[in-house]
C-alpha cells in the first residue's frame, strides 16, 4: 500500500483571497478516494472550508486565508480498519495509506504523514496547515504535523482542535490525561509556567497572562477544584464566556488554570475561548490584506543623522483618492520624477498591470498628471510580482521586480517613452544582484530610490519596524552592495500608531529623502 496505490491529480485553490506568498495557506488533502470519487472529495473539501469560514475567529479572518484542495486518487476506497480493534477488517490500497487502529486504538486514524508533506511541499510550497480527509464514515482522526479526520459526523472538529495545536501553538486545556477517574498521577501540575498562551499556573489577577481580558468583578481564581484527586465536573459559577482562571488544565486536576470554563482546546464541539481566539487573530494579522489605499504617513531623513523622522519636513499624512476598486493595496511603490510625486499600485489579480497616481497638492489622486494604467511586458517567467519598487533617475522611469525564490536578484524594466509600457531590460541591466546585506535582512519589506547621484536599495532589519538597512549600486561591480556609499543602518522615529508596517516605499524629491508607510 502507498505510492503505487494512487496518484496526485492536481491542485485547485478553492478559497482565493490573494497571492499565496501573502496569505495563510491551508491545504486540504484527501485519501481513500478513487478517481470516480474526486467530485465527492471536492464537496468534502468545500465542507471543511465552509466550516472554517463559519467558525470564530476564522469567520472574521477569512480574507487572510487561502484554501487549496490537493486531489489525489487511490486504487481503493476507504481506510484500513483492522478487525483486531473491532473494525471491519477492510484493507484498501490508498495513496497515503490511511489506517485506523494505531497503537491498538481504533479511533486513532493516521496516514503516511511524510508522504503527505512531501506531496504538499511539491504542490503548494507556501503551505501553513495541512488537513487530510480520509474517505471513511468510521469516526477517527489524529494530530501532529498534520490534522487527519474522517467523514464521520463531528470528526471535522478534530481538524479545528488540531489546528489549534499545530498552527497556533495552543495547549490542551483538559484536566486529565487518560481520562477522568482513570488517571492516578494527575493531581497537581508540576512547577514551571507553561509556555503556551492559554494555560497558566498563575491565578493572580495582577500577573495572570490574560489579565487584560478578566473583568474586575470576576473572582480569581474563578473556579478552584476542591478535590485534586478528581476532575472537577461541577457547572461553571459564572456565565458562559466569562474569562477568568478555572482550575484544571494542561492534563492536571489542580495547579493549572484555563481561561474559560469551556473551549475547543478542552472539549470538541465547543467554541474557542476568548484567549485562544485572540492568539489565532494575532497569528493571522500578517496575512490580512489591506482593504484599500487610504492614506500615507510620511517621514524624511534628518540630515547629518541616521534617522528618518515622521512629519519632519513633511505633510504628516496624505490621503489617497480615486483609487480603482481593484487597486492592490499590498503591492505599491513610489517615486518622484523631478516634477511630480507618484504612487503606483498593482491591479489586483494581475501581475502585469499597474495603476498610477499623482500628488495634486492635497492628495495622491488616481490618474492625476498620469497615464492611469500601465503595462509590464517581457518579464521572464521566473519573476516574482508579489512586491515591487520604482524610481526615476533623471532620465528614465524604472521598475523593479525580483526573481522568484531569490529576493537578492532584481529584474529591471524601464518605461518606453510615448507608450503605456514598462519593458523588461529596456535601457536597463536586466538582472542585478543585491549583495552583502546582513543575515537578518527582511527581504519582504524593501524599497528603492535614486537621489540624483546614487541608486539606493533599502530593506528592513528582521523583527523590527524601526530599523532598516541601506545599500547602493556600485557601477564597478554591477551590483547593489550593502553599505556602499551609504549609512548602513537607519532608524525610523515617531512612527504613527496607525501605520501599516508590512510594506514601505521611499523616494528622493531632489531635496529630501522620504519614507512612507500606508495607514491601516
Amino acid at each position, binding site marked *: 500500500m502507498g505510492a503505487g496505490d494512487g496518484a496526485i491529480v492536481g491542485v485547485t485553490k478553492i478559497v482565493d483571497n490573494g497571492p499565496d*506568498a501573502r496569505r495563510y495557506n491551508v491545504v486540504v488533502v484527501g485519501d481513500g478516494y478513487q478517481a470516480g470519487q474526486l467530485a465527492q472529495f471536492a464537496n468534502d473539501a468545500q465542507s471543511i472550508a465552509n466550516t472554517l469560514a463559519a467558525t470564530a475567529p476564522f469567520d472574521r479572518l477569512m480574507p487572510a486565508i487561502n484554501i487549496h484542495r490537493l486531489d489525489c486518487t487511490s486504487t481503493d476506497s476507504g481506510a484500513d480498519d483492522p478487525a483486531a480493534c473491532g473494525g471491519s477488517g477492510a484493507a484498501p490500497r490508498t495513496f497515503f495509506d490511511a489506517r485506523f487502529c494505531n497503537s491498538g486504538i481504533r479511533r486513532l486514524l493516521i496516514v503516511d504523514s511524510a508522504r503527505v508533506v512531501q506531496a504538499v511541499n511539491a504542490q503548494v510550497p507556501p503551505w501553513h496547515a495541512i488537513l487530510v480527509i480520509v474517505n471513511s464514515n468510521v469516526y477517527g482522526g*489524529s494530530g501532529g*504535523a498534520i490534522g487527519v479526520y474522517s467523514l464521520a*459526523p463531528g470528526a471535522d472538529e478534530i481538524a479545528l482542535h488540531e489546528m489549534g495545536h499545530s498552527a497556533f501553538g495552543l495547549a490542551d486545556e483538559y484536566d486529565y490525561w487518560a481520562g477522568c477517574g482513570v488517571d492516578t498521577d494527575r493531581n497537581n501540575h508540576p512547577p514551571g509556567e507553561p509556555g503556551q*498562551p492559554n494555560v*497558566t499556573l498563575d491565578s493572580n489577577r495582577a500577573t495572570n497572562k490574560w489579565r487584560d481580558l478578566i473583568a474586575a468583578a470576576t473572582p480569581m481564581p474563578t473556579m478552584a477544584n476542591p478535590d485534586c484527586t478528581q476532575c472537577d465536573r461541577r457547572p461553571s459559577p459564572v456565565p458562559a464566556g466569562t474569562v477568568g482562571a478555572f482550575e484544571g488544565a494542561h492534563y492536571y486536576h489542580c495547579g493549572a488554570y484555563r481561561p474559560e470554563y469551556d473551549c475547543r482546546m478542552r472539549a470538541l464541539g465547543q467554541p474557542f475561548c476568548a484567549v485562544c481566539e485572540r492568539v489565532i487573530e494575532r497569528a493571522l494579522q500578517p496575512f490580512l490584506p489591506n482593504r484599500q489605499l487610504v492614506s500615507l504617513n510620511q517621514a524624511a531623513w534628518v540630515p547629518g543623522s541616521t534617522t528618518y523622522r515622521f512629519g519632519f519636513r513633511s505633510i504628516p499624512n496624505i490621503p489617497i483618492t480615486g483609487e480603482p476598486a481593484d487597486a492592490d493595496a499590498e503591492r505599491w511603490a513610489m517615486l518622484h520624477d523631478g516634477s511630480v510625486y507618484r504612487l503606483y499600485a498593482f491591479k489586483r489579480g494581475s501581475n502585469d498591470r499597474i495603476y498610477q497616481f499623482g500628488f495634486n497638492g492635497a492628495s495622491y489622486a488616481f490618474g492625476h498628471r498620469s497615464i492611469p494604467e500601465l503595462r509590464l511586458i517581457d518579464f521572464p517567467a521566473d519573476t516574482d510580482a508579489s512586491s515591487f519598487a520604482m524610481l526615476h533617475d533623471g532620465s528614465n522611469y524604472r521598475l523593479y521586480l525580483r526573481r522568484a525564490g531569490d529576493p537578492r536578484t532584481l529584474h529591471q524594466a524601464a518605461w518606453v517613452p510615448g507608450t503605456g509600457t514598462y519593458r523588461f531590460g529596456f535601457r536597463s541591466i536586466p538582472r542585478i544582484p543585491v549583495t552583502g546585506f546582513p543575515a537578518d535582512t527582511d527581504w519582504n519589506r524593501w524599497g528603492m530610490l535614486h537621489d540624483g547621484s546614487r541608486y539606493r536599495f533599502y530593506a528592513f532589519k528582521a523583527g523590527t519596524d524601526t530599523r532598516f538597512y541601506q545599500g547602493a549600486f556600485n557601477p564597478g561591480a554591477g551590483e547593489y552592495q550593502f553599505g556602499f556609499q551609504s549609512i548602513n543602518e537607519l532608524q525610523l522615529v515617531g512612527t504613527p500608531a496607525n501605520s501599516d508596517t508590512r510594506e514601505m516605499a521611499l523616494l528622493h524629491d531632489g531635496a529630501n529623502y522620504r519614507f512612507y508607510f500606508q495607514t491601516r
Partner: protein
Amino acid sequence: MRRLTFTYRDGKIELVSQQQVEMRVPATAPAPRAAAAAPPEFWYELRDAESELLYRLEAEDPIPTDVEVFSDDPERTIERAPNPPEEGVFTVLLPDFENAREIKLMRAAAPRDAKARAAKPEVVEVARFNLTEGSR
C-alpha cells in the same frame, strides 16, 4: 524563508528536504517568559560556518511521547494514550540566511518521573545537520 522537512523513525531523525519558499509566517504570541517559566522543551539553532548562532526558534517537541485520541462520546471527546506511532514527519520554517551552514535540534530533557521534575532539565543535542552536505 527556508522550509526544512525532517522524518523520524525509531528515534532516528533525518533531514529529508530543504526548500526555499516565498511566504509570510504567522506572528508569534507574546512569550510569557516569567521567572517561574518552564524552559522551552525544544528549539532549533541555525548556525554559520564558524558555529555562530544566527537564529533560534523555540517550538513544541515535534516527536511525541504520547498521542491524542478523539471520540464522538460527548463526555470524553479527547484523551491521551501512550505509544504514539514510531515514525512521522515535522517541518520548520526558518529565515533563509545565505551564511547558514548548520541546523541543530535541541531538547531540554525534563525528567518524565513526576518526583524528579523539579530537577533542572538536561539540555541535549537531538540532531545536527549540515545544510550544505547532508546529515551527520
